[in-house]
């Protein structure tokens, strides 16, 4: 027994055992069941095999494609908004200039929105984007004589509200990631560049960004699947899973509606499998494209 505890050969397996058990029990098995259930129709606990009928129904369902469109659109827009902007802000903060106190206060405040729960944030934003004249956002745009806009009743305004919520919550977090990444870039690089006569802008593009690549890859990856899997933000903003013309319905929202609200477990499993394939494809592409797999395997 004692020998086991000292064995360097056995130890790693024991260390990673919890992960392997979790993987098997809580991911592999449910995934397997999902595959199986996707070929079935499930009612009151009884399952009947129906082959690929669920997938056919899915293919023909316009609501599913609308949800797909909504999720992809959201993902792309969050990538555009939530990577360059936080990166620029992080660079701004990371300089030696400016009041440290203001910068600290700014960093702390930017992060607080991420600490609120989605429930709370969704409620607040729904109330701010209220369609009445007295709604906060309508008052703001009223200053320049626009509106009032019926925010959550139309597609693009609703999208704006959703993106506002996303930016409010996650800009701070991404800024943190980028600051952490920037601080690990040795300052000698910058000093050498300054001596060579490079401007701050040039330094940003030639030194900062290339060295930030792992951070950028990381943030991009989590934003991709964060965007595609987004559900609660929309759910809370629209106070439930139904929005005008399904403008706020995301892939997971569709899954939730079919699986939990309509209790069509077989069909919902098919939806889940399809979404999983989509996300895995995108992510594996992204990761191998950035060489993560090769590097990590080589360690």
């Amino acid at each position: 027994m004692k020998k086991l505890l000292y064995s360097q050969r056995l130890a790693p397996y024991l260390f990673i055992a919890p992960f392997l058990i979790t993987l098997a029990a809580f991911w592999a098995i449910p995934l397997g069941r999902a595959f199986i259930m996707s070929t079935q129709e499930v009612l009151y606990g009884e399952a009947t095999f129906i082959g690929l009928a669920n997938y056919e129904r899915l293919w023909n369902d316009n609501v599913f494609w609308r949800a797909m469109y909504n999720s992809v659109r959201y993902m792309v827009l969050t990538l555009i908004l939530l990577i360059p902007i936080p990166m620029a802000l992080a660079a701004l903060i990371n300089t030696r200039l400016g009041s440290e106190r203001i910068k600290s206060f700014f960093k702390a405040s930017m992060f607080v929105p991420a600490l609120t729960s989605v429930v709370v944030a969704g409620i607040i934003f729904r109330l701010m984007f209220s369609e009445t004249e007295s709604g906060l956002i309508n008052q703001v745009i009223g200053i320049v004589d626009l509106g009032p806009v019926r925010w959550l009743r139309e597609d693009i305004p609703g999208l704006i509200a959703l993106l506002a919520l996303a930016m409010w919550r996650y800009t701070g977090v991404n800024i943190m990631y980028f600051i952490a990444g920037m601080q690990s870039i040795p300052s000698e690089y910058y000093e050498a560049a300054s001596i060579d006569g490079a401007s701050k802008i040039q330094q940003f593009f030639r030194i900062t960004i290339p060295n930030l690549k792992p951070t950028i890859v990381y943030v991009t990856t989590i934003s991709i699947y964060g965007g595609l899997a987004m559900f609660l933000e929309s759910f809370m903003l629209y106070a439930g899973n139904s929005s005008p013309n399904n403008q706020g319905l995301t892939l997971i929202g569709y899954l939730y509606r079919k699986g939990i609200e309509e209790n069509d477990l077989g069909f919902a499993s098919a939806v889940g499998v399809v979404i999983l394939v989509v996300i895995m494809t995108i992510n594996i592409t992204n990761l191998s494209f950035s060489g993560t797999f090769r590097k990590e395997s080589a360690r």
Partner: protein
Amino acid sequence: MAGLRRGRTAVGLVAASAVLAACSGGGGDEGGPGEDGRVTLDMWVFAELHGRYYEQMAERWNEENPDRQINLDVTVYPYDEMHNNLQLGVNSGSGLPDVVDIEVNQFSNFVQGSNPPLADLTEAAEPYRDEVVEARLDLYSREGTIYGYPTHVGAFVAFYNTPLLEEAGIDYTTIETWQDFQDAGQQYNEETGEAFSVASTEVNFIQPLLVTQLGGRMFDDAGNVAVNSPEAVEALEIQQEMFEAGALSTIPGGSPDVEEAYGAINNGGYAAIVYPAWYTSRYVDYMPDLEGDIAIAPAPVVEGGEVATIGGGGTGTAVLNSSPDAEIAADWLAFAKLSPEANVAVWEVLGFDPVNMEVWADEEVTHSEDNEYNQYFQTNLFDVLNEVQGDIGHFDGFTSPAWPTVDTQFTTSTLVDVFENGVPAQDALDSAQQALQNELGQ
């Protein structure tokens, strides 16, 4: 060594909690009277007010049936939780109560297939069958078997803000048909610039009402969806016409039954609202400023139409098949929901229009001056009900298993298209039909 001990402890804790968790399922109830001679019935509800009502009904039952007493154990869950729990229970076959309140929109989920989990309540309803509004029993029946008892009629009526209407020169008592309604609304809107009635987008109520009044359906004989049936198109066109004439307007929140809407109505908007009778409790609870201003009148009808009104909304209370005490539960439930005595309480405690029509004739109860609803409204609810008695229809769609999907289609797309985007009713319904056929695989 300390490391190992800590490691072991951690693993041990995790394993122990997993075991504890697995063991924590409650022991099953074998049925029959307990030690005190009473049968214990577990009941789930989603509205605390209903819970208290049932407890009262249990006490009365015990007084009148000393040899068949019950212990009623009510648990109040939030709306979503309760229906999810129930869903889970019927899927796994365990963890179910004896009796449960199921909201009408969810009811179809539990009566599907050839072997639904709900008990047959037809026999227990026999003593009261003749006195009860049949349409409401139909709502919770499938193929002639009653699976749930209604809570109220929920007859569609009209609520008029008389002072506001008088200012615009409108006498609500002259409004009988939808054409009258539209004309009055147009006049009101032009005179005052204010909204007359509501074009709901979040709730799909007027469509079923109109369709049934026109004698039509939204499902065909085989139970397949037919939302673009001629009557359905006509019904939606009527609404669209009213909207364009200014008689209907959209409301903050999308329906009259949300917080934002209460605010708008309380502040003097929407002088005419056509909604089920239980909307009275919203006026009393949430719109105190309008006390004494609101008159209840019959809903507008279609000239030469089939029925005067239908019942809308509601909660069906059911007994679970798996309950070991299903028989006594059914008998008690019939008492608690269909007997005249219970129906008096439905009016007095819950403020709803009761299904047992004997109560409607009891003037002492219906016109009681102590009743807060009678105090609030200018006219008496039962006067209105008696006017339409015998003419209350049943919308076939409400009992279809596909209704939740159809309803969602309307509230997310069709109503929005018609009222927000000006899409012609025929087109909107045709595309809805297409979408629904896809979604339902029909």
